[in-house]
């Protein structure tokens, strides 16, 4: 029989003892999410959200839970260094907080930044609403196992009216270990009214080892808050499954730049709720799977308040036998009059064996709505390639210049110059030869 619980992945993840924190609501939430995970297992491709991302191969692997030596794993700080970018930094290795790699001295007034493990000691009650969530859907299998198992993560709060100049850096590293590991991180981020924060998040691997990392983040922007969020992912050979849930209250403005450069199997569920009137989300992203990598982005934007705006543009470049998946769903809820939604996904296939599946969806239940969406999958422009070659560039160089330009377009409106250059360089270094 092939019941869900029989897969090596489930068996190995369920073999670990359930963490007990002595906080009754938290322990209960862990138990229930784990029970749901054990009962339902992993979604198959009949579940719409997993249609293009089969988990069969992943389910046949087993993972040790947690890393008892995470505190001493070798991680070169150059891995996550951002030249020209200052500011506090929180680093996690294989899911565990690493004070030695972090920079938490002299935090500015109005900023709370600490590992979840400590925040639970200080004031667990403040986290109760977010952390007692039960994930109801089989499609949320990894959020369930994350809720059951995550021992640490980030708690970040910006006080009302506080405008932080330096970006806060969050770094999650999957470090090479003797065995393949499952690690989990749970982040809770809240921007108070009219506050401002720049957040740079990195998900990195030190090697090609096929760990399984899960990250779940809840990000709340109170009225008038502004967040600029950059997410750089290069998990190398690891599997990485993440969910970012943003909720934007009245007049809040979230800007996001997402670069997905690596990973064996990578999934990013980005859920944006424009709850308050006049809230705005601007998203730019690029995914660049190569080799046999699989990168899946599921963007879901929900317009709920009056006169809300979303402007999201993702690009994909797949080479070799890699596969990219993009699903962009915009929903304008009843009563969300005056919504303005714009969503595009442009893709480049660089090899005959590469594949990108893209699916924009638009559902509108309100009036006076402006909405546009579009998706394309194409190849490099042969006219442009010949033009460049006729000027002296070799075929490969011309291809790299064109592909680089295609990807860099997502950084076009980025304000932080050093960060923008770092991201551009990371992308260029990642282009197929």
């Amino acid at each position: 029989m092939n019941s869900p619980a029989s897969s090596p992945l489930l068996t190995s993840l369920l073999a670990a003892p359930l963490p007990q924190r002595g906080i009754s609501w938290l322990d209960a939430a862990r138990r229930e999410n784990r029970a749901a995970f054990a009962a339902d297992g992993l979604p198959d491709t009949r579940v719409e959200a997993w249609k293009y991302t089969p988990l069969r191969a992943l389910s046949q692997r087993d993972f040790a839970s947690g890393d008892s030596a995470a505190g001493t794993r070798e991680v070169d700080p150059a891995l996550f260094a951002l030249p020209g970018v200052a500011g506090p930094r929180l680093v996690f290795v294989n899911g565990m907080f690493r004070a030695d790699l972090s920079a938490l001295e002299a935090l500015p007034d109005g900023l709370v930044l600490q590992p979840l493990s400590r925040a639970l000691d200080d004031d667990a009650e403040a986290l109760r609403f977010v952390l007692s969530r039960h994930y109801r859907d089989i499609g949320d299998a990894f959020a369930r196992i994350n809720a059951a198992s995550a021992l640490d993560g980030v708690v970040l709060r910006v006080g009302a009216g506080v405008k932080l100049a330096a970006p806060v850096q969050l770094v999650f590293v999957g470090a090479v270990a003797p065995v393949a590991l499952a690690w989990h991180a749970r982040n809770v981020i809240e921007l108070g009214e009219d506050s401002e924060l720049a957040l740079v998040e990195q998900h990195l691997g030190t090697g090609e080892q096929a760990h399984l990392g899960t990250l779940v983040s809840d990000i709340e922007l109170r009225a008038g808050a502004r967040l600029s969020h950059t997410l750089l992912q290069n998990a190398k050979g690891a599997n990485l499954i993440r969910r970012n849930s943003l909720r934007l209250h009245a007049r809040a403005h979230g800007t996001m730049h997402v670069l997905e450069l690596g990973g064996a199997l990578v999934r990013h569920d980005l859920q944006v709720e424009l709850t308050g009137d006049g809230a705005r989300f601007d998203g730019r992203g690029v995914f660049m799977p190569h080799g046999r990598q699989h990168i899946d982005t599921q963007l879901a934007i929900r317009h709920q308040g009056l006169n809300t705006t979303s402007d999201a543009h993702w690009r994909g470049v797949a080479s070799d036998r890699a596969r990219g998946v993009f699903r962009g769903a915009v929903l304008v809820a009843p009563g969300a009059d005056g919504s303005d939604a714009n969503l595009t996904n442009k893709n480049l296939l660089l090899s005959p064996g590469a594949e990108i599946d893209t699916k924009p969806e638009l559902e509108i239940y309100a009036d006076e709505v402006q909405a546009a969406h579009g998706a394309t999958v194409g190849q490099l422009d042969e006219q442009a390639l010949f033009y460049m070659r006729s000027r002296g560039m070799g075929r490969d160089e011309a291809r790299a210049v064109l592909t680089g330009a295609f990807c860099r377009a997502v950084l076009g409106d980025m304000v932080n110059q050093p960060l923008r250059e770092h991201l551009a360089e990371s992308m260029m270094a990642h282009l197929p030869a």
Partner: protein
Amino acid sequence: MLKIENLHARVAGKEILKGINLTVNAGEVHAIMGPNGAGKSTLGNVLAGRDGYEVTAGTVTFNGVDLLALLPEARAAAGVFLAFQYPVEIPGVNNTYFLRTALNAQRKQRGENDLDSMQFLKLVRERLKVMNLPADLLHRAVNEGFSGGEKKRNEIFQMALLEPQLAILDETDSGLDIDALKQVATGVNMLRTPERAFVMITHYQRLLDYVVPDFVHVLADGRIVESGDKSLAIRLEQHGYAGLGEPEPTGASA
């Protein structure tokens, strides 16, 4: 410098060039005229090495080298430049970056060192003056949002920077108003040297008032049917291309 013998070429299975013979020496300016569909642009594209143009017979040597055996980028490095009839827009690629990458790619193929950014910028400023182009053009994406005239002037500017031995101008005059045409002509004239040759493909005689050719050839139905000096262009302007293509050894039509 350039020797084309009995060149036959096909595009999409259709024979377009049916035996071209042409010799171009250093320092010469040749104009190739002819009606639409005669094969003028095909000749330019075959010389530059565009995909889809199949040479079925004949030879082309450039400074003694078999040009047809070279990749497009190697032809560029050897000193052949094609100014496109329709310059291609390349979104996201900054003009300066494009030019520097192209120039250094050519220099690398020739075994020369890269120009550093200071040397390159000095060269760019110098050559920009030749074409009287606004400097902000350098910071924009290649040909993106350029007017028709700017695109053609940008081609000549690229030529000024890349300093080819042989420049093939494919209908560079088409779609230009008189001021832009004069600017293009001024650029070309400034680049005329005893070492450099030009092949100007054009439908109209107009450009030849400003860039006076040494030789004029008439291409019709894939062959050069008549050759002469500047006066041939003037006769064509008066009498049109009608009746060409039939052998008229004397070239006299009046």
